[in-house]
């Protein structure tokens, strides 16, 4: 279904650095990509520099100051225990994004490994894809809750649970690309010249499967941020001692009438991030792999 992108194929022989190549030029002229990249950068950078922002400790209790609405003193208000929502939403972003990136990383590693193995080695294809089908047969939230409940609450739990949900989907996309690339002439030529499987996979097949993978991973990031919130909302995932956006919403929802900002602020933070990631993904798709249709979960 997904063909290797012509631009990427053309890039290789010339060995032009990526930031001077045509792909990059097209990306920075793609409006969605640029807006998305800016939004995501703002969110990422804010989360990264949180320790140097001179914010109040996000976990410091100050019950006297509880339920303060947003004001000059407390920019985004305070929560039921008087903690600064500004601090909490920024630090919470750190955790939410870290979880999202963790899921992306696991997807990249296992999705590629399993997808390439299934696509390249015919014998592995059946068993691996049946297993992927079995995992994908579960409604994703239910599978994630099951795994999260089994592993106990921690940020790592959320990462693993969500990775298990999305890896089969990523693996299928990689596999589909590998199936196509495997049959291309230059791969056949390499095989005829006696190159071993590992070399063919590494040098010829994988570079040509990157485009759909990158696009898929940008969407996985977006879904992971959304799904982390769902897990936290249901009381699974990271423990509330280390707040993520999902936990902030879960904690704030009991007070939605009296202190709506506790729910609105983290919700908007999630929306901005996912919006940015989606724009970014759209841009990547348009440029790298216009015919790709990403499976979602």
């Amino acid at each position, binding site marked *: 279904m997904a063909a290797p992108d012509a631009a990427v194929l053309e890039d290789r022989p010339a060995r032009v650095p990526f930031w001077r190549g045509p792909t990059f030029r097209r990306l920075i002229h793609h409006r969605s990509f640029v807006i998305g990249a800016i939004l995501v950068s703002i969110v990422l950078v804010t989360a990264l520099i949180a320790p140097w922002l001179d914010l109040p400790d996000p976990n410091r*209790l100050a*019950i006297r100051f*509880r*339920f303060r609405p947003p004001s000059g003193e407390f920019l985004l208000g305070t929560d*039921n*225990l008087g903690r600064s929502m500004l601090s909490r939403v920024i630090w919470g972003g750190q955790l939410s994004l870290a979880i999202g990136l963790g899921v992306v990383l696991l997807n990249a590693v296992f999705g590629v490994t399993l997808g390439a193995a299934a696509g390249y080695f015919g014998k592995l294809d059946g068993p691996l894809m049946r297993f992927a089908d079995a995992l994908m047969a579960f409604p994703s939230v239910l599978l994630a809750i099951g795994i999260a*409940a089994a592993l*106990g*609450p921690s940020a790592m739990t959320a990462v693993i649970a969500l990775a298990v949900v999305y890896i089969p989907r990523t693996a299928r996309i990689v596999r589909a690309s590998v199936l196509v690339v495997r049959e291309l002439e230059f791969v056949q030529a390499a095989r005829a010249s006696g190159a071993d499987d590992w070399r063919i996979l590494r040098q010829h097949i994988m570079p040509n499967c990157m485009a759909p993978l990158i696009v898929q991973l940008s969407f996985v990031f977006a879904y992971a941020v959304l799904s982390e919130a769902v897990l936290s909302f249901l*009381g*699974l995932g990271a*423990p*509330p*001692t280390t707040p993520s956006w999902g936990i902030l919403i879960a*904690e704030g*929802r*009991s*007070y*939605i*009438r*009296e*202190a709506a900002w506790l729910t609105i602020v983290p919700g908007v933070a999630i929306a901005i991030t996912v919006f940015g990631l989606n724009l970014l993904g759209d841009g990547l798709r348009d440029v790298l792999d216009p015919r790709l249709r990403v499976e979602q979960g």
Partner: protein
Amino acid sequence: MRHVVRHLSAALLAGVSLAALAQAAAAQQRFECPRRGGDLIFALEARIATLDQHVNPASSRNVTMNIFETLVTRDENMNPLLDLAESVTPSADNAVYTFRIREGVTFHNGKALTSADVLASFQRYQRVGFDRSILEPVTRMEAPDARTFVITLREPRPTFLEAISSFTVPIVIIPAENADAPAQQLPIVGTGPFQFVDRVADTQIRIRRYDGYRPDTRHQQMLGFAGYRQACVDTVTFRMMPEAGARTAALEVGEVHGVEDLPTVAQRRLAGNPNIRISRLDHYALVVGYPNLSQAPTDNVLVRQAMQAALNMEEIMEAATDGAFRLNPSFQFPGQAYYTDAGGNLYNQRNQARARELLARSGYRGERVVLLTNREYSYMYNAALVMSEQLKAVGINAELLVLDWPAALQLSTTNAGWNFFYTGWTSVFAQGGAQSLRNLANPANVHRPPNNQSDDVFMAAFNDITRGATLDERRAAFARAQARAFDQVMAVPFGVMPKAQAVRANVEGFRPYYATRMSNVWIRN
């Protein structure tokens, strides 16, 4: 028969049942529904899975106590009160209890209640009942005639009536033909003022007036889960709405007539709303924590005492309840028969200097102190959060471990991996004086003493609570046990959490209680 009741009161529950009877007599006017009819929609917080009240220790009582009745129950102040029993006559040594069953009571299927049903119900409870250990001293149960039920105990137990009248997991009376039902599969047929209509699991339960109900004419008003009860509304629809925000919203817009459990902040907001009437049960749950005596460093009594000294209960309760609480230096609530503040000088010390001094003497070297809590019950989580700050302030290396409730409870029943566990005692109080400290006594020690052997001094006092012949003796024993529990820091009461319930202004006669009561409640036009 009346003399038997009086005899019982005087001899056994001196000052306890008499008070209840006096209260009943004082309310001269017998309750009659000012208006009948209507469907009352009531929103519950908990999701109720089944109505098998023998098995379910949880919130199913909110529904079932309108459907089922028991032999003996509790009045508003937690004192034993006869319900389906017309009388009970204990033997002189308190080892044989003879119940006389009320006449004219019928089940919702039309069948008349006999002692055979009572016997079958007790036997089912012995088999599948959650709290079946309260029947542990029973050696024989028999129904010699249709209206007599006799329980013989292994040894004298003056507190036996207290134990079986507990509505924690009440021994509800069911028809004998249903007594073979496996756990969780009980057909919902009782003798109460309401009968079961239908349910959608986790969503909604409907009950309707049972026309064959014969109110207990010994009383004029409803008392606890018994007394003179009438179903004024035609039907009650219990809707399960676990989301506090949605539940409150439903009440505000008038979709439901009442809610169980209105959050503190919503109470403040709705206080001036003329359409809503808020009522509060001031003493609902005791927020409690207990240390793990098998895990270092809380195996060291000095460390535990240091922790106890460091605590500021006002801060903890403020956070746990959003500001609606009462301090309570006791394992009982004020007004209850066994209430005492013995040992209460160790409660809420807020003494950081003493904490540091005890810590220094204990040889504490900065070992981790794991505070095991959960997030389903946010009051427990918030209590743990504030407590960890207070412990850190005196140099204790406190660390929060937040699991989901089932996992946390499971871990708390093991000896390692945690130092302090948070819970809430609600119905524990319904179990009576001895029962409320049962969690700290052999063999069911929640605080994990080494070899599962609780403290000797405490156990001596505890055994006296169970066996003391008079209420005064038992009270004194309770005070000794409580003082010891405080001194050894076997458990830490933080404070009392109230429960607020609210109804629309056109709902009359609704009074909050430990579980929802729909009798004697009517809807004004």
